[in-house]
């Protein structure tokens, strides 16, 4: 089934590419789609990035100069920061993907109890601005920590540094790996695994020879996404890193502390390199293998694993992780009901009143803009996934690379790149809501693209071909065949975009305007003023509202994209 496509000669590949390009030219909808996508990517991804790149590599007078770059590349300080950042990213990516995989496997493959609860736990951490977890860890394990001081009597514990940072980042980012992987694991045809079992393979053997290799694209994407998130994460290292500095923090420091935007831009470019490398690695590795499992042949429902010796260890692992997540979030919720977090634990509801009075309008702004950008990003993401996963034509490489690029750009730099790009004629968008929508859309879309692409790669071409042979045009094939399969990918992309837009901090700090202020920049301000309890109340409300929204999304998407066949009359 895993067929290896023989690599043809270079010229035949080129002919094929040429042919596919011609084919696209003949299909107006596809052609329009390709043109629209390329135009938007040029304007809102390539242009701002080129702008900041040029900014970093030119002098005040506008002449090209590599002086700043040379300065940084020969500085021991920046190089070691660079190394530390990569190491952190690697560790966090591996651990997060491991945890994400176990969660995804337990939820999709076993009939372990409380699966709904586990699902919730595995998505909860993306629902809140990440620095709230850093704060939890200080409250739990700091010098005055609830666990370290009150429970264990330790007062000399230094909670700042790399270990805490790893814990907090893993907790923040393993949901990304989980979301990617659960989509993949669900779409693996049940009959493949059943066949292995029926032929006498043990569960273990089936896992290693069938499930694991088939889920490899998801594992790699998961690792990639988490790695990039860790690289560009700003708020956690800034809060909990102590003297452990990462590159994205360095960028922020150089720009806002030393007022050196040029050096900051160059450092940002440096940060882009590993992110791009990760992306290319993913592309090279994933695309080399064929992962076709959705073949169109009849399948039956999956038989969940019921063996206690498999089910329970997995379940216990998940429950332990869940306990940690609950402990951290419980601390936040607890903190929202006290007078002065960390000092005066008199219960009160005052924080909620204050938070509502202080930030309801910004909360509303965030919801509206995030919703618009999530839908836009989800749709555009699916279109891009469809345009790039299976076809090969001139311009595809550009779409593929630019569409995920924004994901790897540190938020601070992204914000500045946009200000530089859209604050001069002919495009002036600063101070508007549009700029925020655009940033959110392009920044968060890569997750939709990644999950869309990995889903599409699993679908055998013959299904769409069959549909085309039977007379459907590519639009119809897409709608009837591909779209329903993309539903999960679309949904996870949409939810991710929505949530990330609402919880984004560093990307918007330079883009919010008096009319369009956002909830996170308000919370960020509360932190600065040591209003921790009020911030906690704010975050608790946010998580509540996000959960409601996600519930609504889920229902809506199920209704909107339900397979048409259900509505059709049984007779012809």
């Amino acid at each position, binding site marked *: 089934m895993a067929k290896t496509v023989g690599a043809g000669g270079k010229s035949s590949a080129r002919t094929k590419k040429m042919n596919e390009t011609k084919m696209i030219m003949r299909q107006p*909808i596809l052609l329009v*789609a390709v043109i*629209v996508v390329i135009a*938007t990517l040029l304007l809102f991804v390539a242009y701002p990035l080129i702008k900041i790149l040029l900014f970093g590599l030119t002098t005040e007078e506008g002449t090209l100069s590599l002086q700043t770059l040379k300065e940084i590349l020969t500085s021991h*300080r920046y190089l070691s920061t660079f190394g530390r950042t990569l190491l952190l990213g690697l560790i966090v990516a591996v651990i997060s993907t491991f945890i994400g995989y176990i969660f995804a496997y337990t939820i999709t493959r076993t009939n372990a109890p409380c699966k709904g609860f586990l699902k919730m736990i595995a998505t909860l951490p993306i629902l809140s601005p990440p620095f709230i977890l850093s704060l939890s860890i*200080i409250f739990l394990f*700091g*010098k*005055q920590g609830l666990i370290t001081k009150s429970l264990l009597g330790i007062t000399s514990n*230094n909670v700042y540094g790399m270990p805490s940072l790893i814990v907090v980042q893993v907790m923040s980012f393993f949901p990304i790996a989980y979301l990617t992987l659960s989509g993949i694991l669900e779409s693996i045809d049940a009959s493949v695994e059943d066949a292995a079992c029926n032929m006498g393979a043990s569960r273990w053997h089936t896992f290693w020879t069938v499930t694991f290799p088939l889920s490899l694209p998801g594992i790699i994407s998961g690792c990639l996404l988490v790695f990039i998130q860790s690289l560009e994460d700003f708020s956690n290292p*800034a*809060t909990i890193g*102590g*003297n452990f500095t990462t590159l994205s923090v360095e960028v*922020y*420091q*150089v*720009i*806002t*502390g*030393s*007022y050196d*935007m040029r050096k900051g831009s160059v450092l940002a470019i440096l940060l882009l390199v590993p992110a791009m490398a990760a992306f290319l690695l993913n592309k090279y590795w994933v695309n080399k293998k064929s992962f076709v499992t959705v073949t169109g042949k009849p399948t039956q429902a999956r038989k969940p694993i019921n063996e206690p010796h498999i089910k329970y260890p997995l379940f216990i692992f998940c429950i332990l992780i869940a306990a940690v997540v609950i402990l951290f979030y419980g601390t936040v919720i607890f903190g929202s009901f006290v*007078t*002065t977090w*960390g*000092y*005066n634990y008199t219960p009160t509801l005052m924080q909620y009143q204050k938070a509502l009075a202080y930030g309801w309008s910004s909360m509303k702004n965030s919801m509206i803009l995030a919703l*618009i950008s999530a*839908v836009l990003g989800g*749709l555009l993401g*699916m*279109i891009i996934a469809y345009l790039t996963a299976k076809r090969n034509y001139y311009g595809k490489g550009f779409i593929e690379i630019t569409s995920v690029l924004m994901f790897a750009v540190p938020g601070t730099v992204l914000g*500045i790149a946009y*200000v*530089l790009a859209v604050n001069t004629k002919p495009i002036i*968008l*600063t*101070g*508007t*809501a*549009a700029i925020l*929508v655009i940033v959110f859309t392009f920044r968060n879309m890569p997750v939709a693209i990644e999950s869309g692409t990995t889903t599409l790669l699993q679908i055998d071409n013959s299904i769409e071909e069959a549909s085309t042979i039977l007379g459907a045009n590519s*639009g119809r094939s*897409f*709608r009837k065949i591909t779209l329903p399969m993309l539903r999960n990918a679309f949904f996870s992309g949409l939810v991710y975009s929505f949530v990330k837009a609402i919880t984004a901090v560093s990307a918007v*700090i*330079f883009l*919010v*305007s*008096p009319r369009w*202020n956002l909830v996170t*920049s*308000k919370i960020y*301000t509360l*932190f*600065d*003023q*040591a*209003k921790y309890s009020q911030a906690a109340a704010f975050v608790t409300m946010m998580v509540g509202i996000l959960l409601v929204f996600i519930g609504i999304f889920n229902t809506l998407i199920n209704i909107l994209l339900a397979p048409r066949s259900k509505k059709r009359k049984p007779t012809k």
Partner: protein
Amino acid sequence: MKRFLVLFLTLALCIPMFASTTALADSKSLTVYTAFPEAEVIYYFDKFTEETGITVNYIRLSAGEMLTRVAAEKDNPLAALMVGGSTDNYIAAAEQGLLEPYQSPELAATPEAYLDPTGTWNPVYVGAIAFACNKEWFADKGYDYPTTWADLLDPKYQGEIIMAHPATSGTAYTVLATIIQLMGDDAAWEYLAQLDTNMSQYTKSGAAAPNAVALGEAAIALTFSHDGLQPTAEGYPIELSFPTDGTGYEVGAVALIKNGPADEQENAKLFIDWMCSTAGQNCYAENDSFRVPTNTEAVAAEGLVTLDKVQTIEYDAVWAASVKKDYTATFEEKITSAPEA
């Protein structure tokens, strides 16, 4: 595919509806960037609106972010004013040509030491560097608050002192420049190296240092008096102590942003005048700001330590700003990149 595309295009076409700039075109509004804490600044803006009928639209940023934003928006500034934050930001902004010189006629009662020699920005408050101490920690250990810079070197404070990183925080840089002005170059670096052994960490943001003291993560923060007292508004146990052997101070400022919205220029000047006047600076005593007015005719909050009661040095902000790059680089090289103990 088609449905997706149509849906996407329709939605994308809706974006321009949001793209209209929302700044009102009448002359009754004013757009500002401010580095004052949000809860505090609302008080001033409300008062100003009450007196003049001008509505203030604002974004609250840290001082460094404010400057970055103004620099990035250079070709098309969205705001008319920069409000709050210490003068080193304003000196840097003026050097980059981001500010429009304007001196308020209300500056008559402001001591000359606080004024901008180039006549660009206007001083509105002042605050001295203090040792912000966690009351509980000191009560617990039975120690007295430190009263000299040398006191901070006592090994009993190991891991208990906190300040921001001078490269990223204007506050911390003022601390650094104060120590250098006080002790001279060589002695200052020696002192800082010794202080480093007691240092818990160099935080990224200025506010993080007093906040860490509020939470008991450290016992002493080196910060401005008004920042150090900020957490007490939330009920955290912090008290100030000032070095008797001399301390530096910051002057906070407001200034016009060059080429800001044309219809807001007059309103912006009105705001600067108001903020420099006794009416504006009397507000400091009313809203837990813990700021010391620069206008000597304004009333300081009761119990607030004003600068005449503190042993201040003749802090030279212009000099400090001019050597900032070198000193922060040296700080990084000599102090923070030194091998960890």
